[in-house]
C-alpha cells in the first residue's frame, strides 16, 4: 500500500496543493467579476491570474498524476496534458457544430422545428445554386492554377542563379490579407463608365484601351468575373504552393536524378517519372489545403463584389443569412452543407498524413 504513493509527495501536501489551486481559480474568478468597471486593472489581473493559474493547475495536476500507481501513471499524465486541450476542443468545436446542426432544423429565430425546409432552401434556392456553381469554379480552377503554376515555378527556378529573387517575388503576396488583396485588385479592375469626359483609372482597362480595345466593366461580365476573382487567389496562394513544393523537390536525392540521366532520361521524363511521383504526397497535401481555402472562400468576394453580378459563394451567403438577414436556420443549414462537403477532403488529407506515418 505504501509503495503506491510516491515518496516525493505525501498526501496531505497534495491535498493542500489541490485546495490552494482551487482557491486561486475560484477566488480569481470572483475578483474578476467584481472588477467590471476597472477595465485596465481587470485586463492586467486577468492576464497574470490566467497565466499563473494555468501554470499552477498543470503543476498540481502533474504532481497528482505522478503520485498515481505505476500502472495508470502514464495514462494519467497523458490525461493531464492532453485532457484540457481535448475538453476545450470539444467545447469550442464539437458543441457549436452540434448546435448548428440543431439550428439548421429550426426556423429563423432558432425556435420551432421546420424539418428539412432549410436544407430544401440550401439545395434549391437559385442563389444557392449560383453559389455552388461558383464554389466549384473556385475549387477546380483556383486550386489547379495555384498548384500548376506553383509547381512550374518551383521546378524551373530550382538551382537557377536568381532562384531566391524569383521565389521571394512570387511569395510576397502571401503577406497580404485577402481583404487587402481585394482592395488592391479593385483598382486593377476599376471601370469608370462610358460617355463624355470619362478617364479610366483601372490597370486592366488601361492595357485594353492601349491595344485599341474598349474599356470593360470587368466585375460585371457574367461568368468571367468569377475567373477574374479567382486570379486574385492564385496570385496570393501560388507562393505558398511553390515554397512547399520547392522544398519537396529539393528533398529528392541527387543520386536518383543522376542515375536517370545516366540511363538517358531527358528533363521532361525526369519531371514526369521521378519528380512528380516523388513529391506526390506533398502535392496532395498542398492541393487539399488550397481546396479547403477555395471552399470556404469569403473575403475576396465580399470585398470585390459583395456577391453581386453572379459571383456569390456559399460562405458569403452564409454570412448574409446569419448576420444581415438574421435567419439562423438557413445560415446553419449552409454551414452544415459546407462542413459535409469539406469532410471528405479533410479525411483524405488525414489519410495521406497517416500513410506517411506522420500521425502514428
Amino acid at each position, binding site marked *: 500500500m505504501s509503495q503506491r504513493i510516491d515518496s*516525493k509527495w505525501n498526501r496531505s501536501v497534495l491535498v493542500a*496543493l489541490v485546495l*490552494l489551486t482551487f482557491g*486561486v481559480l475560484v*477566488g*480569481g474568478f470572483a*475578483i474578476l467579476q*467584481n*472588477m467590471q*468597471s*476597472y477595465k485596465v*486593472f481587470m485586463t492586467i*489581473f486577468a492576464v*497574470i*491570474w490566467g497565466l*499563473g493559474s494555468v501554470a*499552477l493547475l498543470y*503543476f498540481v495536476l502533474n504532481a497528482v498524476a505522478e503520485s498515481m500507481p505505476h500502472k495508470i501513471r502514464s495514462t494519467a499524465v497523458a490525461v493531464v496534458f492532453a485532457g484540457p486541450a481535448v475538453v476545450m476542443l470539444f467545447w469550442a468545436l464539437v458543441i457549436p457544430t452540434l448546435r448548428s446542426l440543431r439550428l439548421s432544423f429550426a426556423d*429563423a*429565430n432558432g425556435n420551432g422545428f421546420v424539418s428539412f425546409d432549410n436544407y430544401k432552401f440550401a439545395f434549391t434556392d*437559385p442563389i444557392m445554386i449560383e453559389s455552388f456553381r461558383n464554389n466549384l469554379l473556385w475549387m477546380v480552377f483556383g486550386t489547379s492554377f495555384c498548384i500548376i503554376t506553383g509547381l512550374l515555378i518551383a521546378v524551373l527556378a530550382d538551382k537557377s542563379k536568381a532562384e531566391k529573387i524569383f521565389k521571394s517575388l512570387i511569395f510576397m503576396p502571401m503577406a497580404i490579407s485577402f481583404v487587402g488583396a481585394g482592395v488592391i485588385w479593385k483598382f486593377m479592375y*476599376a*471601370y*469608370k*463608365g*462610358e*460617355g*463624355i*469626359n*470619362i478617364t479610366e483609372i483601372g490597370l486592366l482597362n488601361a492595357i485594353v484601351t492601349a491595344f485599341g480595345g474598349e474599356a470593360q*466593366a470587368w*466585375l*460585371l461580365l*457574367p461568368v468571367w468575373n468569377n475567373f477574374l476573382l479567382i486570379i486574385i487567389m492564385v496570385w496570393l496562394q501560388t507562393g505558398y504552393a511553390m515554397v512547399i513544393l520547392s522544398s519537396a523537390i529539393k528533398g529528392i536525392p541527387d543520386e536518383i536524378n543522376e542515375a536517370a540521366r545516366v540511363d538517358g532520361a531527358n528533363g521532361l521524363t525526369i519531371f514526369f517519372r521521378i519528380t512528380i511521383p516523388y513529391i506526390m504526397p506533398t502535392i496532395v497535401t498542398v492541393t487539399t489545403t488550397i481546396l479547403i481555402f477555395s471552399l470556404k472562400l469569403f473575403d475576396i468576394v*465580399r*470585398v470585390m*463584389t*459583395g*456577391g*453581386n*453580378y*453572379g459571383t456569390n459563394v456559399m460562405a458569403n451567403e452564409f*454570412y*448574409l*443569412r*446569419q*448576420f*444581415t*438577414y*438574421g*435567419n439562423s436556420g438557413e445560415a446553419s443549414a449552409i454551414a452544415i452543407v459546407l462542413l459535409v462537403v469539406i469532410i471528405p477532403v479533410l479525411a483524405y488529407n488525414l489519410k495521406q498524413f497517416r500513410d506517411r506515418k506522420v500521425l502514428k
Partner: protein
Amino acid sequence: MKKIGILIIALLMFSTAVFAAGQKEASPAASETAMADDAYAAVRGKVVTMAGPFVDNDAIKFEQSVKSFEEMTGIDIQYEGSKEFEASIGISIEGGNAPDIVDFPQPGLLNNFVAKGYVIDLNKVLDMEKVKSNYIQSWLDMATMESPDGPIMAGLWGRVNGKSLVWYNKKEFDAAGYKVPTTWAELVSLQKMIISDGDSPWAVGIESGAATGWAATDWVEEMMLRTTSLENYDKWVSGELKFDSPEVRGAIETMASIWFADGMVYGGRKGIATTSFGDAPKVMFEKPPKAWLHKQGNFITSFFPDNLKAGEDYDFFYLPSVDPQYGKPVLVAGDIYAMFNDRPEVRMVMQYFATGASVEGWVKAGGAISPHKDSQLSWYTNIVDRKVAEVIQNATSVRFDGSDLMPGQVGAGSFWKEMTDYVSGTKTLDQAVKAIDASWPE
C-alpha cells in the same frame, strides 16, 4: 523540491497581493453616498453603454452632443461605434451581452430584436407624456413595433436625415444660367438643356461594398412616393403590395427612364453599378463639372471635396413630385435608440434622448437634423442644414426609408441585390421584381 516550495510561496504571496488589490478596487462606492444632496447622486459615476454605427466624425459629434448631460448627471455614456454594426450587434444581443442602449439606423433590424422579445417597452419605463409631446405622430408610429407580448414603443428617434434632396454645384450652376426646377416638367427640361450643352445631367453611383445597391433603393422609394399614393407606399413596405405590381414596377421604370437614358447619367448604366455612392457626387465639383445633379440624403455633404462652403459652393433643391396630386412627400431616415437593459441611469439617458437638447450640439456642428419638437431652427448653423430641416417641416407627408423598414432579407438583401443586378443589366426588371417577392419571408 526546494525550488517548487519557493515557487508555491511566491504564487501564494502574489495571489494574496492581487486579492487585496482587487478588493480595494471593488469598493469605491463609499464616497458616492457622501454626496446625498446631489439630485443625481444615485446615478453619479454610473456607466451606460451604447453601441451603434457612428464612427470617426459622427462619433466625435455624438460624444460632444451628450457631453453637457454627462457633466450634469455624472453618468458616463460609453459609445462604441462599429462599421460592421449590423453584423456585430446580433452577436452581442443574442449572446446575452447587449449594450444598455443600441442605436439602429435601420428600424427593420430593430424590429427583428423586438420580435424576439429582447427590447424593453418604453411605455413602461419612461415618462411617455413628455416623450409623446415632443414628436409628431408619424415618428411615434414608426417606433411602435410588434413584440411577442403585443405592440410596444421600441425606441426613440435621435438624429434624422432628409433624403429627397438634389445637390448641385451652386457657383457653376448659376454661372451656366440654369434654374432650380420646382416641378417635374422643369426638371425634365433642365435635363434636356444640360444634355444639349454637352454634359451629363446626373451623377449616380450605387456601389457600396457589401451594401451595394442601397442607393438605388432610395431612388425607388422616392419614385414610389411620387407616382402612387401613400397608402400604396405603406402597403409596399409592409409586404402587402408586391414588387411585381404595376405601382412598384411603374416607380422602378420612372427611375430607369432617367438612369438608363442615353447620356443622362455620367458613366452610363454600367458606370452606375461600379461607382461608389460616396465618389459619385465628386464629379460635380471638377472644373468644369462633368455632371450637374446628385440626389442623396444630407449626410452626403461629408463626402464632398474639402473646403466647400454650404450655400455658396453647393446647394440643394427638393426633388419635385412627378404627379402633383401626391403632394410634397419627403423621404427620411434616421437613428432610433432602443433600450435593452433597465436601470435607473439607462432610463435617465433614454428620457434625455427624447429631448432636442440631446442633439443640439450635433445640429450646431452640422450634419444632423433634429426630429424633436422642442428643437429650434436657430441651432442650424449652416444654411443648408436649416433648409433641410425646413424641407422636412414643410413636407405634406413624411415617409421613412422603405428598405430600412422592410425585413432584413429584403431591405438589406434581395432589394439591394436585385436592383444592382437590374441596373448592371445582369437581370431584367421582370426577373428582379419576382426574385425580390420570392425572398419575402412568410
